């Protein structure tokens, strides 16, 4: 009986330590990525003839780096609104997978809190959160909100700053800012693998090889965003089936 109470206290303590501020702190390593990509997205917004206010609105409402690049590119190409919206939908379908993977950890909270967490989920906040869960560490709503809100505010400010400096920076690709996105995914992947027990590493490396091949093959039949989505769905299934 006594030990039960003790473990309860310990549980509350570790959970208590996971504050909003801890979420803010855990977000800091990813901020440079958000700032780099955000500025780039803002610069591209300017080149698509969006006003700074429109760039701010875009980043606050859509809040997805890849989509914002695509929306701007399609605006420049004078694509019809329906095509822009449909493409954005496909590009962001991957969020469904990320939300589905994280949602089971937040089932004890109210619907409103869940919707709040889901609405601000990004590739990076998902990466940071799933890094914790794959290590078996707890996550809670306050910590997740700290992570999400920090990223959200940083993103909007970076996009608007990018829109502002867009007029005199010229080419953001020359500065390497566009690569911040890939570098961040690469780092999150390596961190995921480093957190694995060595017995599982071989299985995951096999899956990575499958995914690389799948994306390459699928991208000759589908748009690159559809290829990413399909490769993830298929290769995660291969992972589940071949698990020992």
């Amino acid at each position, binding site marked *: 009986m006594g030990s039960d109470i003790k473990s309860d206290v310990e549980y509350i303590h570790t959970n208590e330590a996971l504050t909003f501020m801890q979420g803010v702190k855990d977000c800091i390593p990813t901020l440079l990525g958000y700032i780099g990509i955000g500025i780039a997205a803002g610069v591209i917004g300017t080149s698509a003839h969006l006003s700074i206010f*429109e760039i701010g609105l875009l980043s606050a409402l859509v809040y997805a780096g890849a989509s914002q690049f695509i929306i701007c590119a399609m605006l420049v190409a004078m694509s019809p609104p329906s095509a822009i919206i449909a493409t*954005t939908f496909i590009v962001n379908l991957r969020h469904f997978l990320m939300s589905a993977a994280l949602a089971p950890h937040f*089932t004890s*909270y109210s619907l409103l809190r869940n919707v709040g967490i889901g609405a601000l989920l990004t590739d990076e906040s*998902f990466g940071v959160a799933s890094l914790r869960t794959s290590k078996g560490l707890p996550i809670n709503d306050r910590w997740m909100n700290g992570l999400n809100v920090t990223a959200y505010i940083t993103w909007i400010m970076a996009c608007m700053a990018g829109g502002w400096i867009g007029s005199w920076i010229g080419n953001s690709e020359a500065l*390497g800012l566009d690569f911040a996105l890939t570098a961040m995914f690469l780092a999150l992947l*390596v961190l995921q693998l480093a957190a694995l027990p060595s017995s599982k590493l071989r299985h995951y490396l096999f899956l990575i090889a499958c995914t690389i091949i799948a994306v390459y093959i699928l991208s000759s039949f589908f748009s690159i965003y559809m290829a*990413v989505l399909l*490769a993830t769905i298929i290769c995660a299934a291969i*992972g589940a089936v071949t698990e020992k």
Partner: protein
Amino acid sequence: MKVDLTVFLIIVGCALVTIIPRILPFAIIRRLQLPKPFTKWLSYIPVCLLTALVVQGAIRQTDSIPAINGLHLLIMLPTLFIAMKTKSLLITVITGVLCAALVRLIF
């Protein structure tokens, strides 16, 4: 502070299709118990998705078979090395951006 009406409607439309996949799992999963094979499948999503997103950057779609972006691979190698060596998100991103800027300066 001008907002073009068409641009505004596009932004709102894109916002809707972006937020739905984000919040839907959070709204429904809390109501039902997930079957074991499904949670198993979900556990493999992060690594597969991150791999796919990395590969996405290195592929250039053409009319025939997709081409591999050699410059991108060239930037990726030192970035991957630094990621494995430091296991730091921040240092990896800085390395990646610097390498990208350097490679584009040279080529």
